[in-house]
């Protein structure tokens, strides 16, 4: 039994506390927007916000999230930065197969919010280094985040 706050709502799951958090969120919590790409923490597709910080949910077991806030991408549906990023990703052509995109947007949201000045392309590249994308070559992803950062900081 694990209890936590999932996307703002109290959630208790009967899954074993040793179950991988990403699996618990997907299979028991209905958070199918959490993508599982590697299960070893290398790809970042499963990134969530744990107490507001981006973490790779495949590297945690659900018991580690006991009593804490877990936000997946759909929990950011009213967040102005996340929703702007979703549109800027789409507009910039930063979405191809889209499998990495939810994790990218989670990290980018935290990155944009954490900066008081518009992020440079180098800043963005450094911030997204833990999220792999195989389709886009990253160029348009960086552009989408750059645009969101510029709008957010000004």
């Amino acid at each position, binding site marked *: 039994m694990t209890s936590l706050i999932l996307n703002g709502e109290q959630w208790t799951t009967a899954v074993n506390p040793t179950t991988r958090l990403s699996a618990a969120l997907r299979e028991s919590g209905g958070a199918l*927007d959490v993508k599982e790409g590697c299960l070893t923490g290398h790809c970042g597709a499963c990134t969530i916000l744990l107490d507001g910080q981006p973490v790779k949910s495949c590297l945690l077991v659900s018991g580690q999230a006991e009593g804490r806030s877990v936000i997946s991408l759909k929990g950011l549906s009213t967040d102005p930065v996340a929703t702007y990023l979703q549109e800027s990703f789409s507009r910039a052509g930063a*979405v191809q197969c*889209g499998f990495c995109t939810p994790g990218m947007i989670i990290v980018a949201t935290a990155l944009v919010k954490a900066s008081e000045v518009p992020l440079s392309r180098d800043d963005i590249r450094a911030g997204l280094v833990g999220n792999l994308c195989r389709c886009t070559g990253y160029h348009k992803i*960086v552009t989408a985040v750059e645009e969101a950062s510029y709008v957010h900081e000004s």
Partner: protein
Amino acid sequence: MSTKAETLGTAPTEPRRIIGKRLEKKDALAKAQGRLPYAADFSASDMLYAKVVRSPYAVAAIAEINTESAKTVPGVRAVLTAKDIPHNSIVSRFGQSTDLGRQFEGTYRVLAEDQVRYYGEPVVLIAADSPEIAEKAAELIDVEYEPMPGVFTVQDAMKQGAPGVGGEKSNVVSHFEVRRGNVEEAFASADVIVENTYTVPMADHAYLEPESGMAWMDENGVLVIRVATQVIEHCYDIADILALSHSQVRVAGTWVGGGFGGKEDMTVEPYIAVLAWATKRPVKLTFTRQDSLIGHGKRHPFTMTYKTGVKRTGELVAVKAELIADAGAYVTLTPWVLLYATANACGPYEVPHVEISATAVLTNNCPSSAYRGFGAVQPNVAYESQMDELARQLGMGPVEFRRKNLIQQGSQLPHGHHYDRPVLADTVGSQVWEAIQARPLPSPRGDLRFGRGIAYSMTSYGRLMFLRDTSRCWIRLERDGTAVVRCGVPDIGGGQVSSLRFIVCEELGLGVDQVEVYNADSVLTPLAGTTTATRQLYMSGNATLAAAHELKRRLSEKAKSHLGPDIDRFAFEDGYIISQTDNRRVALSEIINECYHDGVEMYYEAQFNAPVVDIPTSAELNTPLFADYTFGAQAVDVAVDTKTGKVDVMRVVNGLDVGTVINRLNCEGQMEGGTVQNLGYALTEEVTAPDGIMTSTTFGEYLIPTTLDVPDIETIVIESGTGVGPYGAKGVGEPSCNGIAPAILNAIQDAVGIRVTSLPASPERVLSALQAL
């Protein structure tokens, strides 16, 4: 209706509203919001979870498989071995529609029978109530293996008396040749000769979405497989395996989280199909990354020995090349890949004397199969390294030297193709070189040395013409003036669906929200062929264009009573049919309603047939193979750290003649993504498997580029309008992923004076080459 390529491959002159614009594809926002379901996101209430038990040995006889303890675990619903499968081994013709003879066939085996041929070969299938139970049962499977000697290099596999990987005497499974003129005499007349042997590694597609699918028997007894695949036509292979009729198996493709050729062969389909058939319950299987890396076919490793001769004035006189490909443990798509490599061995150059010998050999390595660039990428590394060396030794600029040797419209390609379409390779190369030269290279500082390199590329799009390729698309117009499109095209992220939407919008004057596309279902959508070979825009784009044209013809006939007889002057714009003679207009929906009223069919399915040639009848090639090629040039600036051997790509320019842009975002996106995939191939990516035991089984060992490994990407998009796709489009998917690797090798040479001949150009390789100077 069938339509020939020539009738559709012209570029219209009128301004376009949709085609060529920078438009969002409809699935992008849904994906960015996490709303779009992928294969692993589907489930059913009474679903079982599958597990594939794999061989821990690369080569071993299977003496006995004991599944009894596994079967007793509560919650285990099926434990299957090869003998439980009606046709465990089938002769696969890998999607071809005609019989091409043995050279183009291979065994597809669901589970190992009396022997395993490679590490990780599937041996037992389990279905259980939960993944944990399936895992527990897997641990209780007791297979008695008797390890056997194997062959893990092509050199060993070709030795006299080497163990036969496939049970045959020889491990050679495919061989092609090209001969033109007399190379020995030509070399005697050459002023400069460069000889090198190049090796390129086994590489993985490394799409972010691991293979996944679910299968179930529906209420009519039809086996349904919902799966992430590039090829829904594998329904026929599944039918063969289970001895079902072709009409009893349906593949419903999902949006695919990247393919690159790795979801071209069957992945999870046979496992979930067999288990669902055996248990009569839905069965789901999602590969772990380890399963994915161990369990699917790779890009063929090649050893390529090249001898290239040139006159002092810069004209190539001869190329002699021996290509040896490691097919791995099963034939899969090896003959086709080898055929591509043979035909591509000289690149986009006019060479009077040519001798190419290409051989593929079975080993006990992971099977090699399709990967973006399909036999074009490997020789490109070799021939563009050769061109760079020759230019250096002649003291000529790389663009100037290539210009002297590029094929032109009307050239005879070495494999016997009279290529009669325009070749803009020099235009592309000149613009790419100019773009990279716009900024000077930095001066050496500390341990860093800087270099610049360029390479050219020539990549086919569309399948081998002797495969007699076809695609189909169906369009229906609704009474309110919107349209529904059905086309079997799997969308693997490249915008395959959105391209069809944009074509329909352009032709019928509709907005992008007025067209819905339904795709990738082997029963409910017309078969469009595979999303491989950079063929969907060409093939399904032309089918879609043809269907739209026929509906336009019917509408125009009906609109005559409103707009006059001059239907050639009718334009379809913004929901109206407009006479360009006098600007009279009538609402599209009004004409559609009149057609419905009068019984004129407002739906149409068009089939597009690619041009065909006869099947090559000998190993020596002397016929055209491809309808067309995309020409490109790629340039990079690198920084080489002479202390560590690390190579950083500081700038990269990728230029292609794309024919015509359908969607600018998608086109650039292909070029940028392909650039980085080929960059990873050049610098970091290598599947390692000492003695056949794969050790690169996570993204911690198989290193694909991160945001910090690549610079911003400059793309140069040239539109000649001369392709055989809709509106004169060429293909970009695979051509985008070519040329970067040799450009990097050439830039390393420019920076530090070493010729790296083995990929990846890892820090270790570069450093040891520097130390050998």
